[in-house]
């Protein structure tokens, strides 16, 4: 997890990466139209190649997931599935532990983001609006903790959990995941609150509203897109996490889909590739769909400094 920048740059939707007219127009003045056309074709072809290369691993996974088990491992590889088979997906969805793993993934990610927002949002508001002695010190602590990677704390946190018999505790796990995303939540909310004119707060104050009331009923509704961005980035971070769950909650009943994936890779019986690819696609589908539905917030989140890790 990196230190997020407090400043927020919101990229618009498609309009944001609009072609800079400057790249094409001045050239047009000097060069024949034919060359501009050739350049456009070149860019289009190059783009198509890049898109194809980047998508290739995902396309290959999809193709493998709908092959039968024998065809998945023929050499030379067969490109198109024949016969087309959904048996791998059936096996994934009806798997012995699948529902438990899915439930845990959902439980951990939603709960920890909720906790992070609950504790982080008031702090983010206060960071943007209040000034008092010691605030800088508090912000420094929050910034410093955002620089502590989970992997460095595996040993001491495990020791702590072990001492209080909290290894395999869902509540402990949710608390740890919430703490991982809490610093970025504070920075985000702070940045979004700063975009709301403080005159609005003052007007509500004159009307006799308390600080808490102003925060909950006036400011929070105004930063809904910001809350959505925090929510989505947090959800994806926790959903995709393997390390925390694998080390602190190794019990089979506590596993998430991510942990199940790694266990299959390490399974000494070997890997069934069409099953594996189907599993990977099912485990990724929720975050990919969420990303597609909310990509504008996702991008603004990235720009605001929400690096996962």
């Amino acid at each position: 997890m990196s230190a997020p920048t407090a400043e927020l740059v919101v990229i618009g939707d498609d309009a944001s990466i609009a072609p800079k007219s400057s790249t094409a127009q001045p050239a047009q003045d000097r060069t024949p139209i034919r060359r501009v056309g050739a350049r456009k074709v070149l860019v289009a072809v190059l783009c198509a190649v890049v898109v194809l290369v980047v998508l290739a691993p995902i396309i290959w996974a999809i193709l493998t997931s709908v092959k039968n088990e024998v065809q998945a491992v023929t050499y030379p590889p067969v490109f198109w599935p024949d016969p087309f088979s959904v048996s791998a997906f059936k096996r994934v969805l009806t798997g012995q532990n699948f529902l438990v793993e899915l439930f845990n993934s959902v439980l951990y990610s939603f709960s920890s983001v909720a906790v992070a927002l609950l504790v982080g949002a008031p702090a983010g508001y206060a960071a943007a609006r209040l000034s008092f002695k010691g605030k800088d010190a508090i912000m420094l602590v929050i910034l410093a903790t955002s620089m502590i990677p989970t992997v460095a704390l595996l040993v001491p946190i495990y020791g702590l959990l072990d001492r209080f018999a909290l290894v395999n505790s869902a509540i402990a796990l949710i608390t740890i995941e919430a703490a991982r995303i809490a610093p970025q939540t504070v920075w985000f909310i702070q940045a979004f609150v700063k975009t709301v004119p403080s005159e609005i707060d003052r007007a509500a104050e004159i009307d006799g509203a308390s600080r808490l009331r102003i925060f909950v009923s006036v400011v929070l509704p105004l930063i809904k897109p910001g809350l959505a961005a925090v929510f989505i980035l947090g959800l994806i971070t926790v959903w995709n996490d393997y390390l925390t769950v694998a080390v602190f909650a190794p019990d089979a009943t506590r596993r998430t889909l991510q942990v199940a994936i790694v266990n299959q890779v390490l399974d000494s019986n070997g890997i069934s590739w069409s099953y594996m690819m189907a599993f990977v696609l099912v485990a990724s589908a929720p975050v990919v769909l969420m990303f597609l539905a909310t990509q504008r917030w996702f991008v603004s989140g990235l720009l605001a400094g929400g690096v996962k890790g």
Partner: protein
Amino acid sequence: MAWLWFAPVLVLLMVVMVYPTASLVWMSLHEMKFFQTTKFVGLQNYKDVISSDGFSDLVSVSFMFVGGTLVLALTIGLGTALLVQSLGKRTAGAVRTILLLPWTLSMTVVGCLWLWLLNPSYGPVKYAMSKLGMESGLMLGNPDAALPLVIIAAAWWSFPYAMVLVAAALQSVPKELYNAVDIDGGAGIHRFRYVTWPHVAPTLGSTGLALAITYFTLVSLIIVMTGGGPLGATTTFSFAIFKETVQSVDISPAAVISMIILFANIVLGVIYKFVAAKAHHAS
């Protein structure tokens, strides 16, 4: 009473981050049996770890992994940002969305996808290489090839992050500057060298640092693709901690390596804060 607003988040961070960090420091100065401290040994653990046989390999693998992935991801990120920028409005949005897909996947999933692509018996990469008359060999099982292949997978996963940030920086370049280059008779390369580059370089710097932190602490991808092997060829600091935490009786070496990671991260993080602030002023 203003600090009350911060109380909940501070309690959470104290319990999960600050206290464990303090206890990590404490552990690293003791001889340990599982999670019990047995004897205070001062800096002896540090001396042992740094002078151990594997330490220099750990350092070189970590640096090659972080450096190699950075170079690859930043280059592809910059290239794709420039490419997408020169597209029409609608296509640019769609292409950007597609190219962002890898970044939404978990490292576990990314590892699986590449493990399958690079399968030494049935994989499409082996097939493509044999068509080109090349010997693919054991791929991830080959000590010389494993690290570069893991680097490719890590760069595939993370270049979209660089792309998005560079694309945002590109938007901030004043068009007039390009016109000025054109009036002076500059070619495309001059536009890049004198206008684009100065505007994106600070962003590349801060993005690079953020990514370096991510790469430095990345574990799951390595677990899935190579398990740190073959022959330790892909064992980074972070992977070593994971392995030691799970397997060892004496966890003080893991505590020492954790301290190294922690220290490196804080240094990188502080530099990041400065560079990011500078990058912001520049744009």
